[in-house]
């Protein structure tokens, strides 16, 4: 799980071009969106959807569940673990 979380953080930094942010800077349980945590926005949400498909072959089947899945790195990792084939 820890490897997956670190991989996810590195992929987020790369795909979202998070300047001056390191894997260590990202709090695993902090919110990804909004004013707290990383402060991502709706375009980043699209990028994360692509990231999940590109690296893990996963599609978000139910858009309503996106808010919970995308809450933090931890919730993303849980979703990947539960759904990766």
């Amino acid at each position, binding site marked *: 799980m820890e490897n997956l979380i670190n991989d996810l953080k590195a992929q987020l930094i790369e795909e979202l071009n998070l300047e001056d942010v390191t894997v260590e800077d990202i709090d695993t349980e902090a919110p990804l969106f909004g004013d707290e945590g990383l*402060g991502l926005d709706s375009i980043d949400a699209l*990028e994360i959807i692509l990231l999940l498909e590109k690296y893990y072959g996963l599609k978000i089947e139910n858009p309503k569940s996106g808010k919970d899945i995308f809450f933090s790195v931890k919730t993303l990792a849980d979703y990947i673990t539960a759904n990766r084939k």
Partner: protein
Amino acid sequence: MACFITNKISVSPQQTFLSDSFFSGSANVAEERKLRAVEPNYKETIAEAGLRRRMSRIVKMGVSAGLACANGADGVDAIITATGLGCLADTEKFLDSVVRNDESLLNPTAFIQSTFNTIGAQIALILKNSSYNVTYAHRGFSFESALLDAMLRIEDGDARNVLVGAMDEITDLSFAVMERLGFWRNGAVMGEGANFFLLSGSKSSADDVALVDVATFMNRKEEAFDKCVQGFLSRNNLEISQIDVLLYGSSDKSYCLGGVCSAVSEAVDYKKYCGEFPTASSFAVWLGAEVLKRGALPCGKTLDGAKRVLVYTDYQSVNRSLILLEI
């Protein structure tokens, strides 16, 4: 009615961004036939990391120059930008992902940022400016079209202050493609930059340079263009001898512009400083205005009492333009 350049900012292959070094020091030269811009410290010019991280090089250059130019302005009533080829790096990134991923999994950021009006829009968003906002993408006439629009808006009383700028960027792919098309024959080097101007209907200081006239000419052979030059000077009630400095940007070094080259006391090939790109004339206008204001040419040579600069630009023998500056 003339417009006045009340502020001007240049990001170019020379030390021009908020610096006097270009006029006092030596000029940077091309490496591998490319003149790449000396870029500002973007952490200083675009402080918000959340905005900066999505911007490609051309967007950062353009936004940095635009914001610095608008800084301190007494209102900006229009933002008019120009680019010949637009945000090439983002366009290449997006098209590359289309091919590599078989038209699926397309990156939204590169697509959004690849549009030609990205820089004008970003400047407006940052300045919270909801005024007239237009981008001209008319290849070798892009900047001239933006200038004409700005002059018309000021002359018609639709705007007091207009932020006008132009930008283009080098990418390795575009250099290679243009090389195959023969763009770099005759020793031309590829250039890039972002040049912004704050134009106003009235002077803000005594030494503001006037943008007197702009004219564009499409597909004119040199013999026919000689007459265009004469007509341009006539409509401004000028003789050739009244032009003090000619800034020319042409791959044909033998063309004498209807005798202007031999009549002026100083003729400077401005593209040796900025390279060749569709909006290179914007660098020439920045340079011309600086020359008149400083009474000096780049790299140290002083001029005595220069009053007028004529900018002549030839882009691929298709787009030719004349721009007259006066102090």
